[in-house]
């Protein structure tokens, strides 16, 4: 069972650095980004998400598009459960894998082996769930004996492969991605895409934010367009092989 139900969710970021006085009674709309306004407590706030309502069900592959600052990343973080909406209601059922930052939890001084546990734990796995994945991760990331070396001794390609391998070894009902993931050089990336597809194939709902609308049209079956935190378009896409790269 996986489902995301959002009802008029609003996200306001308070800006404590700005003096509210200079914004008093002024409501500014910037070219990009959320609406700047002053809330009831005379504080400057940025409205990043402005009353979104949607219902995502199993099988939905949603592509989020919009300019920088349109609220895509914020929406992903709200779905990840990091930000609780200021108002409105959000109900999520299903295990979430947040792939927003593949490096979150990793430590460059820790060994590759330690990092597998650090990263996977932050992804929500328990040690006994991680242990059986270790071999597969090591093999996929092509690290060999480097797995017992500190992460900072790795080449950037190896670091990327490890982060990618751990993050994609988790199975989840709902997957959140900021930009389509890729890893390493062309030959490795092919392998990486296969692995990513396998993970996405097992997931019931995918929400991916991207600037690449073409990519979204080929991989997703729904498209949500955001503008200044508002939903300006939410349509079904003609399904080709939904969820698969052509």
């Amino acid at each position, binding site marked *: 069972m996986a489902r995301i139900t959002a009802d008029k969710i609003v996200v306001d970021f308070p800006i404590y650095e700005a003096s509210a006085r200079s914004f008093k009674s002024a409501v500014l709309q910037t070219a990009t980004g959320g609406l700047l306004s002053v809330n009831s407590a005379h504080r400057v706030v940025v409205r990043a998400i402005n009353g979104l309502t949607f219902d995502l069900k199993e099988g939905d592959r949603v592509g989020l598009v919009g300019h920088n600052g349109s609220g895509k990343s914020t929406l992903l973080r709200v779905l990840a459960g*990091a930000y609780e909406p200021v108002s409105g209601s959000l109900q999520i059922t299903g295990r979430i894998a947040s792939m927003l930052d593949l490096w979150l939890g990793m430590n460059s001084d820790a060994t590759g082996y330690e990092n597998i546990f650090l990263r996977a734990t932050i992804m929500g796995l328990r040690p006994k769930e991680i242990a059986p994945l270790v071999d597969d991760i090591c093999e996929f990331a092509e690290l060999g004996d480097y797995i017992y070396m500190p992460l900072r001794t790795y080449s950037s390609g190896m670091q990327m492969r490890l982060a990618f391998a751990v993050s994609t070894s988790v199975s989840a009902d709902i997957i959140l991605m900021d930009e389509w993931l890729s890893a390493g050089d062309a030959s490795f990336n092919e392998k990486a895409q296969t692995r990513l597809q396998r993970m996405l194939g097992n997931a019931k709902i995918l929400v991916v934010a991207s600037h690449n609308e073409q990519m979204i049209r080929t991989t997703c079956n729904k498209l949500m367009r955001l503008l200044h935190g508002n939903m300006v378009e939410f349509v079904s896409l003609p399904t080709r092989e939904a969820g698969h790269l052509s």
Partner: protein
Amino acid sequence: MASRERRNLTLAVKDVWDGVRRIYIWPMLGWQDIKQRYRRSVIGPFWLTLSYGAMVAGMGPLYGRLLQQDIGSYLPYLATSFVIWILMSSIIIDACSAFIGAEGYIKQVKLPLTVHVLRLVWKNVLIFFHNFVIVLLVMFIYPPPLTWALLLIPAGVLMLALNGIWLGLLFGMLCARFRDVPQVVSSFVQIVFFLTPVMWRSEMLGRKQWLVELNPFYHFLEIVRAPLISGGGAMRSWLMVTLITIAGFLVTLLVFSRYRARVAYWV
């Protein structure tokens, strides 16, 4: 409105409970924090033990003489007092960055906020145990009174750690919202060090000894220290500590249930 408050309270309690239950996360992160400091060092975290030993060995004789104390009774006093003081003061100081320092996690994934607090408490408890080796060593040379009160020591340490939880949540929130608070806290901790009988003994105040009873830090010191020094159970201090613990958790729960969801916006 009342239902909303009840819901917030439930979520706050759930956060604490879920945080505690993630026993596979916070001990690992806390241990990583210590390991991080001693990577590539040969004796690793035992540097903590060593430097604490050096401090006690250096300050013990000097301050024993300055305060005209018999070294056989002052050295155990100092070694025990300081190790508890370090635990308390570092928890308070770390509490200020409990959430600010975990910004990356808080803004990206859904984890109970309590996890970040337990991480810092656990880190400091581990440091405490490393330092405590020195206390044991001193006790070996100058044996403490063997009384049943010694059994209260683990409970005392547990009590200190428990108080670290509400303190970490409360100060973590305060400091995330008001960035001047960490500065205030660190000056405050420095002053409290001199006002609390860590280096000196409460008896030295003579007729004004009752003054230390007003200092909560004194009671926290006593519940762990008294069994090792006087052999007493420090029942009055236990009572005070229990009251502070209950009050602390109640206040924190009220603040936490109100502002828990705001922390992600503050960090």
